[in-house]
């Protein structure tokens, strides 16, 4: 059962990545692109978790933890750049 669930989940998040990319390349504003990248990071964290379940190992959890912890920082930096120009004022 878990097998089919995994396949479904992989399919969903894989598709999500592609849609994120579409939003990055084709978007009304830069803000949308930055948000799409951020969503992509979130989706990646999910994929890492799924991959861990598939392989039955916890060795990838640190990577997803690190992504969760630092991934949003790039987003903040892009946004600060957009709004203020100088990201460290």
């Amino acid at each position: 059962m878990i097998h089919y669930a995994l396949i479904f989940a992989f399919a969903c998040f894989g598709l999500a990545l592609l849609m994120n990319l579409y939003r990055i390349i084709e978007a009304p504003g830069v803000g949308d692109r930055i948000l799409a990248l951020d969503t992509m990071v979130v989706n990646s964290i999910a994929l890492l978790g799924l991959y861990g379940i598939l392989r039955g190992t916890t060795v990838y959890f640190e990577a997803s933890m690190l992504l969760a912890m630092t991934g949003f920082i790039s987003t903040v930096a892009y946004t600060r750049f957009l709004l203020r120009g100088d990201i460290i004022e």
Partner: protein
Amino acid sequence: MESIGTFLPLIAMMPFVGALFPGLMIQAGRNVCAMTAAVPTILAIIMLTICAPAVLDGEVLQFSLPWLPSLGLNVNFFLDGLGLLFAGLILGIGILIILYARFYLSRQDPMGQFYTYLLLFQGAMVGIVLSDNILLLLIFWELTSLSSFLLIGYWKHLPEGRQGARMALTVTGMGGLAMIAGMLILGNIVGSYDLTVILENKDAIQASPLYLPALLLILVGCFAKSAQFPFHFWLPHAMAAPTPVSAYLHSATMVKAGLFLMARMWPVLAGTPEWFYIVATTGLITMVLGAVIALFKDDLKALLAFSTVSHLGLITMLLGFGTPLAAVAAVFHIINHATFKAALFMTAGIVDHEAHTRDIKRLGGLRHLMPITFLIAMLAALSMAGIPLLNGFLSKEMMLEEAAHTVWAGSPWLVPALATLGALFSVAYSFRYIVHVFLGDVRQDYPSKPHDPDFGMWAAPGFLVLLVVLIGVLPAVAEPLVRTTAGAVVGGELPYFSLKIWHGLTPALFMSAIAVAGGALVLSIHSVLAPRWDAAPRPEAKQIFDAIARTATVFSRWLTDMLHNGSLSRFAAIFAVAVIAAGLFAWTGGEAGPPVREPLEIAAVPAIAWALLVLCSLGMLVFHRNRLLVLILMGVVGLIVSLAFIYFSAPDLALTQISVEVVTIILLLLALNFLPKVSPKESSPGRRLRDGVVAGAGGLAVAGLTYAILLGDFAQESISAFHLENSYSGGGGTNVVNVILVDFRGYDTFGEIIVLGIAALVIYALSQSVLGGAGGRWLASGELDSKKAGDRHPLMMVIASRVMMPIALMAGVYIFLRGHNEPGGGFIAGLVVAIALVMQYMASGFAWAVARQRVPYHTTIALGVMAACFTGVGAWFAGRPFLTSDFGYVTIPPLEKFELATAMAFDIGVFLCVIGAVMLALDSLSSMARRAGETVNQLPMDIDPARRSVANATDKMAVAAGKEA
């Protein structure tokens, strides 16, 4: 004799250690400075004297210390007769020169520098003559070239001095390069770089097909150093140096280094026709040519310089004859020439010092004004001419005797005739030195009224002339030294010889008589010959040298400009094409094996990731002028690459990539702030097409290569298995990646963190210098002011980053501690902590964060490097090589058994270095945006939550004011 042997490295080291002090002691006065320079020399002489009796008894003292034994490079010294003679000359004349220079240098000359250079040179020379390892010898050889460059160019304000120094360095340096090649060949033939081993392998060397190339290369080095034809031209130009330097380097020591090496290699290289024809012929040409030119030089030092060239040629010729008796004569003449020529240079220096000119045409009659100098100069010059009862006569007789029965290419008279001609001109210029400078009437038009100098200045040449007379009258006093030295040169038994004045009516005596009579005759018609000589066309060495140097400069500038004219795309294109061509060449060599592996099946999600990578790359190509968009696409690529590392079972790399990605984006955004947001079109369509083709080819080539390597087998067996096997047993960790970093390849990592630290410091230095220059003015002009929307330090972000800080630090500690056994380690932990710190900078601003940063990042880098270094040094105390790691298991009762490894201390070094480097780089870039007069926030955020009521009140007032308006 082991105990005496330990003096040898001390003798060689003494001048180098001593070189540190004169520059400091000059503060205490010129006398103290000179004495400071004399002390190490005297100590070295004392130690040499202790060694001397044993050597004169025929012993060979040795000292050996492995340095890099795997390369054949060892600190081996040995002292035999030849080494003793040269070390004695170098140190003995060295002490006289130190005395002489004290009085010669004027108050304006920086005396501390002079003695430092002189001692450096002295140490290098002593090193050459004591080395028992040819690689060590080569190091000292190069050191003499460098230190003599400093000495010749000592008077930096004189263009001749600088040009002469450059010419000397170029010629002797290129000779040194040839010498290195020759020595390496020699070492390869024998299979050892130890001189004593090489000297025992005469047959192997002379039978080798590489004998001739090795001989030629070594001889080029020797000839360049000893100013032999056609490399003789640098020596006269080096005469721009102060006279003590000329007396030391260019009469007694450095130019003799080439002779020393020929003598040293004599047992294995000499005795073949090649040796005879190359060395003896070169020596003969140099001797005659130098003597003829010397006669027509009006500058005292130029005359002496060419006479030195001539006498060096004489010694070279004797060594070239290849017979033991000729070697004896060569050794004897080395001693004699050093004594009379150093004395002559010093008298020339005295004349220059007192009369303020060295031009022979403006001198004459000095006999009455400077009687002491005249006496010294006359005795030394007569010795140079080869007049009986002076030491020059003895060795010149021996030279003529050897020349008299040397057959050159079937002709028995050529060598004797030319040798006599050389001797004849030698007599002529020696007499000229006496007659045209000291004899004749006293003149009234000297630039300065000359008189004898103080005792200190003529003491050194006076002492040397005493030796000249002593050896000349009682040759037997020099016999033991000559015998031991010649024995060392020949490397075996010497035939019978005795040094005496009267050998009977030999051919040599007649040749000598012809030379003296002819020399006097030539001098008497000098005034007739000189104008014709000056009018005769001849090549000017300096002009030729300058022309060659200029051509080389023009060529290299052309080549550099062609390859690298400052345009990055041009340089990248040339580089890419070259690499592709090299790769194609290697590929067509057929070394690559056929594919042996099946490609893996392609799963759906990795295929999507691949598609993302490709699409993003294409996207970057299309949108590359919009720089922010490209940065966002780069973020995607970084993310996918991190995922790919996970997928291909490289969690360490994935962790690193994730954290590096964040830092990279922040750095690039900081930099982008100063750059145009849109790249302008700069190249023509044709050029863009060309660059596109090159880039496409490069990309395809790399992809193809990767594909081939992934499917093929390694040509060599992979070392992965070794690392996997030994990681736990040898390094105490189960995470092989980390054990490789901190243990197996710890030395690499050590170098890398140093490079990382240097890179960060360079970024800091560059940004500081930009701020001080035009860039800083541009920044201050406020052109950078971009849109300033939103809050400067939003409350939400400040709170979030404060909360994140301890969590991130904890994650950093966790990643660091587990690194040895699970994915993680100091590098990743350093990046994570750095990211946590950057968060605070972004949230509350640069000034606020810096005010709370107590340890400067420079210090963090230094601490990191030092931690790693001391960990490595710690291994020495356990008697093991640098960076050998150790580990053990410790049990503290409430805890489980855990491991402690020295690698962890090393990893702390890596950790600190990474934090310091990343933060310093960010700090430097963001500090560029600082401008003078900008308000610095004292509070962490724009809004002060504690003073809400006041803030509300002002808001209300503002609203009220708006309404009223």
